């Protein structure tokens, strides 16, 4: 059955009324369905309490819901055990956790972390920080102008025998392309390297199965998955999480504390120092439950039709160059482009005045922009609530804005 987009939209307060925004910035943060807001509201109104602390009924209820959320997230990405799910504050913190805890324990001077040019700063800077602290090497795969990674370059760098980790995005937040994760993970493992997948973008647009992928770590944020801000997820294989030292220190993460020493607890609590994002974990679980009413096949078919439409419409605008593939089958969620003689900040500012939300800038991917040889781009990104009519309106308003600026 095809996705009924009006039925989707009715479940978002933000789209009620005739002044609803034309929201094309879901790759930055997706809008939140009422079901998610209500689940967090219920926590605050009826059982707000800390988790894993104390004996009273409220904390018990909060703890149960928090741990249920862990199970919901685990099942969503097909983790073998709920204990493989660590709650963080966002995807960025999840990757930093791996760089700090796993990286500092397992990487020495001369070891290599291998990245792709598609990476977001959050999957670059933690490794550059490790380079500063530990003198590791950071190397880059090659890619063509359409954003296709060159497997020969991966093979060549892996062949040098120094790579200990391949950290790669599941879906580019600029070009919308998806690297062949299965193949890259297999090649990395064959070369004795661990793998980390940045699933920040992929997670909301394609089913993720960590066991089928075989990745060692996978990170994402709640707020791009129709969930709340303030929550991220790190999946790690159980044995890896067990061997890793803790990340932050404090309450919850300990086994025992004396005046002169401590011993850490078991994962995942070992990595969840301090009061965790309780309402947000409950909200994230609600977002995942909410999504289950729509089969993945319907979501993907619908979003592909929107991307196809957007490519066609943008292709008709004069003096506009789309970066990356122009083929809807190779692009997911977002399209980035440059308009001759018009800076993205002017274009997005003018469109913003019409309640049309697009993002202009480098989208936290400066190395990718350097590789593509453009200082900044304008990005259109979609969620399952966008419509073909919105795209038509966008095209008309964009033409007007460009005419004004040229």
């Amino acid at each position: 059955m095809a996705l009924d987009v009006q039925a989707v939209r009715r479940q978002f307060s933000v789209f009620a009324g005739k002044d609803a925004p034309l929201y094309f910035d879901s790759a930055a943060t997706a809008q939140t369905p009422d079901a998610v807001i209500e689940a967090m509201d219920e926590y605050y109104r009826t059982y707000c309490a800390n988790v894993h602390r104390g004996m009273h009924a409220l904390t018990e209820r909060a703890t149960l819901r928090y741990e249920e959320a862990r199970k919901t997230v685990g099942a969503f990405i097909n983790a073998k055990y709920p204990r493989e799910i660590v709650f963080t504050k966002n995807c960025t913190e999840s990757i930093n956790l791996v760089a700090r805890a796993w990286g500092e324990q397992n990487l020495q001077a001369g070891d290599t972390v291998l990245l792709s040019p598609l990476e977001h700063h959050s999957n670059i800077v933690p490794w550059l920080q490790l380079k500063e602290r530990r003198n590791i090497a950071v190397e880059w795969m090659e890619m063509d102008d359409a954003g296709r990674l060159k497997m020969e370059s991966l093979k060549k760098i892996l062949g040098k025998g120094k790579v200990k980790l391949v950290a790669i995005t599941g879906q580019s937040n600029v070009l919308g392309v998806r690297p062949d994760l299965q193949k890259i993970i297999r090649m990395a493992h064959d070369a004795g390297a661990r793998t980390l997948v940045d699933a920040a973008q992929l997670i909301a647009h394609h089913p993720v199965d960590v066991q089928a992928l075989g990745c060692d770590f996978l990170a994402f944020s709640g707020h791009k998955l129709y969930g709340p801000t303030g929550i991220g997820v790190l999946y790690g294989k159980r044995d890896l999480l067990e061997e890793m030292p803790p990340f932050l220190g404090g309450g919850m993460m300990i086994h025992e504390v004396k005046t002169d020493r401590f011993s850490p607890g078991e994962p995942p609590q070992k990595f969840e120092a301090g009061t965790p994002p309780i309402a947000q974990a409950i909200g994230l679980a609600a977002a995942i439950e909410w999504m289950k009413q729509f089969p993945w096949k319907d979501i993907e078919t619908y979003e592909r039709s929107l991307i196809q439409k957007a490519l066609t419409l943008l292709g008709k605008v004069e003096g506009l160059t789309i970066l990356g593939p122009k083929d809807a089958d190779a692009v997911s969620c977002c399209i980035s482009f440059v308009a001759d003689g018009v800076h993205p900040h002017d274009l997005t500012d003018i469109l913003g005045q019409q309640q049309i939300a697009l993002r202009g800038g480098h989208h936290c991917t400066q190395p990718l922009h350097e590789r593509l040889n453009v200082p900044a781009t304008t990005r259109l990104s979609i969620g399952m609530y966008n419509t073909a009519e919105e795209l038509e309106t966008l095209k008309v308003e964009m033409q007007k804005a460009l005419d004004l600026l040229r």
Partner: protein
Amino acid sequence: MDLYAENILAHYRAPQNKGDLQEASITHTEANHACGDELTVQMNIENGRIAEIAWQGAGCAISQAGMSMLSEEVRGMTLEKAGALGQKDVYDLLGIPVGPRRFKCALLCLHTLKNTLNVYRKIPVQGWLKTVEIDEE
């Protein structure tokens, strides 16, 4: 009021003093890395005044129109007076309300001018905080 007022767009489409001086006694470049805007100012100073000014740049309409307007304003101005220009002067020139999203676009011209003069006086270039008049204490 509209950020893209006609005077801004007029300067953006037909920038004043944009180009290169035959010979310049100082050249200085500043950029706003958050959006990739860049401005380079060239000057000749005679008798304590900005005798000639030209600039090159790339970026958004606000940053480029701002530089165009400011270059007209400071041509012939004494160094003392030019050095005392502040953000309010630039906002007055632009004549539009500049919000938190775009103030760096608007003030890139001032930042570049100030640091061009600083280089001329052989004093260290100033940081953005000083240009936007945020007191660090």
